[in-house]
């Protein structure tokens, strides 16, 4: 076989390889199989009198677009599924907005804002270029964090649900079991991090000011949170088993949601979430106004969420009675 024909085939194979997913060894094996077939087809055509280059051209044309062939052999699995892109972008922008506001706050106050284990430092010499560079740095960091969270959630906890959204249908058993695994991971991480999330520290001229992130009721709420997630794990396992009567799983679903509302209301009612912003340290005389606004916003979100879930619970209870 001439070098020219080999090069033509090689180029085609390279292009197919570019759109293949999977492990490198699997890819090599698939490409070798494809290459072997191509050469065999060319041999057959040349044996019947066709010119080699023409035969190679015809064979490759009959196989179609190399990228489509490569994709058909081994589809590439994107890091982030397309249907998650919108949520990812929204979450990233939201995190970026909060993060950058904190950077601005730190710059205006000319001191670090410490949110253990994170520390937000001010922009040293504020200028347009410095602001732009810092914004870019913050955006990249936040996008990285969000990407890691989304990929973890997607891979470990398929359609994980500790949310209040309505369960529209019972999924495949493997999805429910992976949800249970994801929730178990959440439980472990939340308990592991609790010591680091108890307070925020703001450095000022006279030392470090400690502001309770969540007050004495935190331990109680963590216990409730643990029970809440544990119930959700059992619920997912029951859904996963899909053993005939799902009444127990549905009842547990309702119990989990009810406990969720209770947790949320209790946190809002007892923990004075407004203090976590450290508004008093940063905003001086305007702190009370900002604190009141934030408090109202938190309360409204909690009440709206509770109302929506309350309506859903009533509907579910009535459906069960049917």
């Amino acid at each position: 076989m001439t070098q020219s024909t080999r090069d033509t085939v090689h180029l085609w194979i390279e292009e197919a390889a570019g759109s293949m997913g999977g492990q490198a060894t699997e890819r090599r094996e698939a490409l070798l199989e494809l290459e072997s077939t191509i050469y065999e087809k060319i041999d057959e055509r040349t044996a019947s009198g066709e010119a080699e280059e023409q035969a190679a051209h015809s064979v490759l044309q009959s196989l179609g677009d190399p990228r489509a062939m490569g994709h058909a052999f081994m589809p590439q699995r994107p890091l982030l599924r397309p249907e998650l892109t919108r949520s990812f972008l929204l979450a990233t922008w939201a995190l970026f907005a909060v993060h950058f506001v904190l950077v601005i706050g730190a710059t205006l106050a000319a001191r670090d804002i410490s949110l253990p284990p994170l520390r937000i430092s001010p922009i040293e010499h504020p200028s347009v270029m410095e602001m732009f560079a810092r914004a870019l740095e913050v955006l990249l960091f936040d996008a990285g964090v969000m990407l890691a969270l989304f990929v973890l959630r997607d891979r470990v906890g398929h359609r994980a649900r500790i949310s209040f959204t309505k369960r529209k249908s019972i999924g495949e058993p493997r999805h429910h079991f992976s949800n249970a695994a994801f929730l178990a991971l959440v439980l472990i991480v939340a308990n592991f991090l609790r010591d680091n999330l108890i307070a925020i520290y703001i450095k000022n001229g006279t030392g470090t000011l400690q502001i309770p992130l969540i007050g004495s009721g935190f331990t109680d709420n963590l216990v409730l949170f643990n029970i809440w997630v544990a119930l959700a794990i059992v619920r997912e396992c029951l859904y996963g088993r899909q053993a005939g009567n799902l009444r127990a799983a549905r009842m547990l679903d309702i119990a989990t949601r009810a406990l969720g509302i209770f947790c949320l209301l209790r946190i809002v009612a007892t923990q004075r979430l407004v203090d976590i912003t450290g508004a008093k340290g940063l905003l001086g005389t305007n702190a009370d106004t900002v604190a009141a606004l934030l408090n109202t916003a938190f309360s409204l979100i909690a009440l709206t969420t509770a109302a929506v879930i309350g309506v859903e619970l009533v509907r579910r209870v009535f459906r069960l009675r049917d």
Partner: protein
Amino acid sequence: MSTPTLDKIGAELRRGIVQIAALSLLRERMHGYQLVKVLAAAGIETEEGTLYPLLRRLETQGLLTSQWDTAGARPRKYYLLSEDGKSALPVLESVWRGINRSVNSILATDLASVATETGQ
């Protein structure tokens, strides 16, 4: 109806058939291109882009085993029905015969007489 649409429906119909045909033929050891030719000779034209991924999937599902033969002029990957495949084949054949019977029966049915019988 347009030709591309008909082609697409035809390809979808064939895809299901190729699966059982390939499993049945691979009671004998064959490489991918050989299988393409045997299927074509039997009247089932299959593209490599359809057959090779199918063979890979059947292998992952444990219905086929494969072995590389590097003794010849160029390396070839040979496929053979696995033990699981051997147990699955009669079941799939029975499913296929059932579907075949039902579809033939539907295609041969006189719809006017069915409407009269069911009172529609």
